[in-house]
């Protein structure tokens, strides 16, 4: 019998779909959350997660089941140029930390799931057009805003409304 604590079961309470402002009324469990996790030369590492949820404290939660897959940077840029929303972002350079909401073609990814979960696949790259259904929502700004919320809630207690009142006049 180990003296170490067992793995706890984390209960997030009632969970609802995360609905970032850009996807208001559009977000669905059929979306995947795709993040540019790494760029090495012409290789792009994409972290693909089931669509996040929000717990009863308003925290964005990611269920298990993240997989990594790869894309050629030029192929991904070309695909985004054609299908990225909002359109004014279509020519934005690829950057680590860019986040997208896409509907993945499960019929393409499912046969690869075991290999993807082994986290070994990056080559050969999948053509983005083969597994992403347009459009691709660029939710980078919303995702970074949510990441900042999660950070500040972690490093200092969340303010109750009464407490927040003292700093509201200072808000941007």
């Amino acid at each position, binding site marked *: 019998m180990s*003296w170490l604590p067992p793995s706890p079961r984390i209960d997030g309470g009632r969970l609802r779909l995360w609905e970032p402002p850009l996807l208001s009324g559009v977000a669905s469990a059929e979306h995947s959350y795709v993040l540019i996790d790494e760029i090495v030369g012409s290789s792009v590492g994409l972290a693909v*997660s089931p669509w996040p949820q929000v717990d009863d404290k308003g*925290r964005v939660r990611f269920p298990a089941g993240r997989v990594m897959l790869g894309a050629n940077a030029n192929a991904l840029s070309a695909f985004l140029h054609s299908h990225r929303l909002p359109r004014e972002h279509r020519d934005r350079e690829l950057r680590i930390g860019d986040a997208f909401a896409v509907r993945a073609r499960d019929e393409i990814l499912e046969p690869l799931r075991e290999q993807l979960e082994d986290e070994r696949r990056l080559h050969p790259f999948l053509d983005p057009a083969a597994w992403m259904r347009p459009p691709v929502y660029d939710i980078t700004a919303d995702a970074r805003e949510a990441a900042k919320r999660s950070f500040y809630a972690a490093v200092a207690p969340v303010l109750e409304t009464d407490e927040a009142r003292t700093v509201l006049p200072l808000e941007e």
Partner: protein
Amino acid sequence: MAAPDPVPANALERGDFIADCAPEDLVYFLLNVGDGDSQLLLLPAESNGSRRALVVDVATVAKLPSLIEALAKTPLLPPRDDPFPLVVGTHPHEDHIGGMPEFLDRFGPLIREYWEPGYYHPSGSYFEVMRALEDHPHIQHSQPTSGFTRYLGMVRLTVLAPTISLRNRFDSYGVTINNASIALKVEFPAARVEQRGSDRRYLRIRRSQNLVLGADAQTLSWGEVMSDFPELRPSDSPVAKALRMAVGADPLRAQIFKVPHHASKHGVTLELVELIRPRLSLVSSAPGGGRYNFPHTVAQESVREALEALASGAAKHRPDHELGIHYTCTSDTVGAPLGSIAIIISPSGRKRLWRLGDRPDAPVDLSQARRFVEQELAEASDIETHEPAPA
């Protein structure tokens, strides 16, 4: 990418890893997690005989807990309330914090402090790490930059990177996530004070064992590190003398070097390795090159050349294991994986290198450990400590 050559099977022999660890030893683990980093430093036993452990990155959910569970069944990690004084998430890439949320959820009550660089990365693991820290508000959170130090018993930690200059550019997209990495220097033993009856004596440690844990810092970051921690040439100027006294002559020197970024071509330069001059250079990488075909030949050759300068391009370097370069992904000549790396470091400088024989997706089994015998690692330390001389 050049796959590391197999190590001769007769260079390793079975032994009792647990018995080889003396209470006063520092034990460093670089785990075989494929693409990614998971590291654990088992600190020397304290006066009550028990040890604490420092965690640097948790790439995968199962591997590091399997090592901790194995150690907890031995005298190396006996029960205590505060076994983890510090956990470091060097940067928020999946291959460094992919298993961190589960680690924090399970061991959070036993953790005192968490370091991360302050780089926002909207990944699932980042969100879940922050959620886990929120759920454990007793864990002190810090974002250290270069020069910050923390003493943990017989060990002194110094943050080499990121520099303040890089830190101030994180949110402008002017710094990539790898260059946000927290790179650490570990010095052992650190200076202590001895109680002698009703008096005390400062123990100046003349020579120390140093480890540089490079995380995924790349050339931009290392350039700033080399500026912040310069090699100080002999000079009689008062400033040079004062600096040498304060920080030593070659503050980046280390016997053990965890090669940055899985030996990508942007993670290491010839000049950096020449400054560090490691006896052991350790690479965490996946069999077959992993996702990004690491280690890169350019990085491998830089390390080799720094360790064994050749007069001409026609000459060949000795095999990597003879140069002290070891990869988590290597196998031996009969095809057995060498797996996770463990180094037992005595205060005197004596070092023993063990391989734990695990595959990336398998738990650690300490009974499978083999000791590396080909290279004599039992050498005296030759690195001056950074402690100033007494007045």
